C-alpha cells in the first residue's frame, strides 16, 4: 500500500529572528548560527522560484515584438547563457560600453522584445508583492553560472577603464555624510552595529560583494539583484540615486567582480 508520510510543514522563516539584538561580543557565534540557518535554507532556496520564472521569461516570446530572449548575446554569443554571468561585466561593441548582467538583460528586453526603458526602470526593484521581470531573468542567468569561477574579462580598453573608473567611484567620498563605498568596505574587520563589513578592496573578501547575489532576502521575503544592492548602498550613503543599469553601476560591479576574479560563484543565494 502506498501512503504518504507528512514530515514537516514549512517553518516561518522570515519573521522575528532577533539577529540585530545579538551581543557584539557574540559576533562570531552569531555569524556561525546564521550560517547554519542559511545552510538549511539553501537546500530549498526560494531563489529557485525566480530561476524557474526567469527561465520561462527567457524562452517564452514576450514584449511588443513578441520575441523571446533566446537571441540575446550575454557576451558568449547569441543565446549562450551557461557561464555568461560569471564572465560579466564585459564590453559589448553594439553599445560601445561595459555592461553588467542585469544591464545587458534589460538591453536585450529593449532591443529584442521592444520594451521601453522608461517602463523597465520606473520601479526596477522587487517589493513584497511584485518582482520585476529583469530580476527573475537575472536570477535565471546567474544560476547558469553556479559553481564556475568568476572571470570578468579585462582585455578591451573600456573593460580596463571600467575597472579604473569603478575603483575611483568606490573611493569617492561625497553626500551629506562624506561617505564612500570604502568608508564601510575599505578596511578589514569593521562592523556597523553587529553587521560585519567585508573589505572589498581585498581579493579574498571581494567575493562577498558578488556571492549570494541575486539573493532571496529573508527580510520581507523578496528577490534582489546587485543593481538593487548597490543602489541601496547609495541610499545609506546619503547620496542621490544612481540610474538603474547605468555605467556607474556597471563600473562599480567591474571593480568588485574583477577583485573577486578566480573565485567560485555559487549561484543565487540567501541573504538576511
Amino acid at each position: 500500500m502506498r501512503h504518504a508520510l507528512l514530515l514537516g510543514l514549512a517553518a516561518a522563516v522570515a519573521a522575528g529572528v532577533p539577529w540585530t539584538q545579538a551581543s557584539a561580543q557574540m559576533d562570531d557565534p552569531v555569524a556561525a548560527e546564521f550560517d547554519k540557518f542559511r545552510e538549511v535554507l539553501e537546500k530549498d532556496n526560494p531563489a529557485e522560484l525566480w530561476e524557474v520564472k526567469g527561465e520561462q521569461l527567457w524562452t517564452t516570446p514576450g514584449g511588443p515584438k513578441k520575441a523571446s530572449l533566446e537571441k540575446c548575446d550575454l557576451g558568449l554569443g547569441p543565446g549562450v547563457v551557461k557561464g555568461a554571468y560569471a564572465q560579466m561585466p564585459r564590453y559589448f561593441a553594439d553599445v560601445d560600453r561595459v555592461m553588467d548582467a542585469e544591464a545587458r538583460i534589460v538591453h536585450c528586453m529593449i532591443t529584442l522584445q521592444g520594451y521601453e526603458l522608461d517602463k523597465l526602470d520606473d520601479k526596477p526593484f522587487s517589493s513584497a508583492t511584485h518582482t520585476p521581470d529583469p530580476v527573475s531573468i537575472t536570477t535565471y542567468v546567474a544560476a547558469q553560472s553556479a559553481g564556475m569561477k568568476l572571470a570578468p574579462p579585462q582585455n578591451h580598453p573600456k573593460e580596463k577603464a571600467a575597472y579604473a573608473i569603478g575603483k575611483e567611484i568606490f573611493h569617492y567620498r561625497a553626500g551629506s555624510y562624506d561617505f564612500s563605498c570604502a568608508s564601510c568596505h575599505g578596511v578589514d574587520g569593521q562592523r556597523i552595529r553587529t553587521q560585519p563589513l567585508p573589505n572589498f578592496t581585498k581579493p579574498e573578501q571581494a567575493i562577498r560583494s558578488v556571492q549570494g547575489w541575486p539573493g532571496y532576502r529573508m527580510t520581507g521575503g523578496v528577490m534582489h539583484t546587485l543593481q538593487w544592492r548597490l543602489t541601496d548602498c547609495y541610499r545609506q550613503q546619503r547620496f542621490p540615486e544612481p540610474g538603474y543599469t547605468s555605467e556607474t553601476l556597471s563600473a562599480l560591479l567591474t571593480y568588485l567582480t574583477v577583485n573577486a576574479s578566480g573565485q567560485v560563484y555559487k549561484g543565487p543565494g540567501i541573504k538576511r
Partner: protein
Amino acid sequence: MKLTTLAILAGGTVLLASCATGTGDPRAEALAMMDRDFHARGIASKDRLKEDAVMAACNKYNDNPPADVVARLQKEQLATIRYPADGKLLGDWKAGEKVAQNGRGMAWSDKGGVGGSCYNCHQIGPATTSFGTVGPSLYQFAKMRGFGTDIQRYAYGKIYNSKAFNLCSQMPRFGHVQALTEQQMKDITALLMDPASPVNQ
C-alpha cells in the same frame, strides 16, 4: 604667429575634452560618469554628489593630503563651528542616548527626524552591545579625558565638524551639514561628558 598660438590653444582644448570622456584620467572620467548617471530622489538632491574642498582633497590624495593642505583646510573647518550662544555645551544625556541610537535621517527614504547614528560606528553606553567598530570606543569618554570645559568644547566641536580635527575623518559633519540641531548636539555631548551619564560610570 597668431595662427600657431590658436593651433596650440585648440590642441589644448581637445586634450582637456579627451580627459573627461576618453581614455584619460580615471578620476575625471569617474566624476563625469557620476554626473551623468545620478539623479535627485526625495530629499537627496543631486548637488550632494559634488565634493566640497575638503572631500576633494581627501578624494584626490586617498584620505592623506599633504600637511600644508591639511593645516589650511582644518583651520577653515574649525572656523565653521558655531558653539551654542548660551555658552552651555551639555544638554540632557538621556535625550542624547536616544539621538545616539537613532540611525535614521538624510537618506532619500527619510522625510525628517535625523538621528546621530552614533552606535552604528562607536561603542558608547555599556547597555548597548550592538555597536559598530568603524570609530573608536567612546565608553568612559570623560572619565578618561577629564570633565573640563576644554574637553566639552572638543566633544561638541567634533560632533559639529569632525573635519576640523582630522581632515579626512570618516565621521560626518553633523552640525556643518545641518543634520543635527544644536540641542541634539548638546544632548550627545552630555551623553559623553555628564558625570551622571552611564558612559562615565
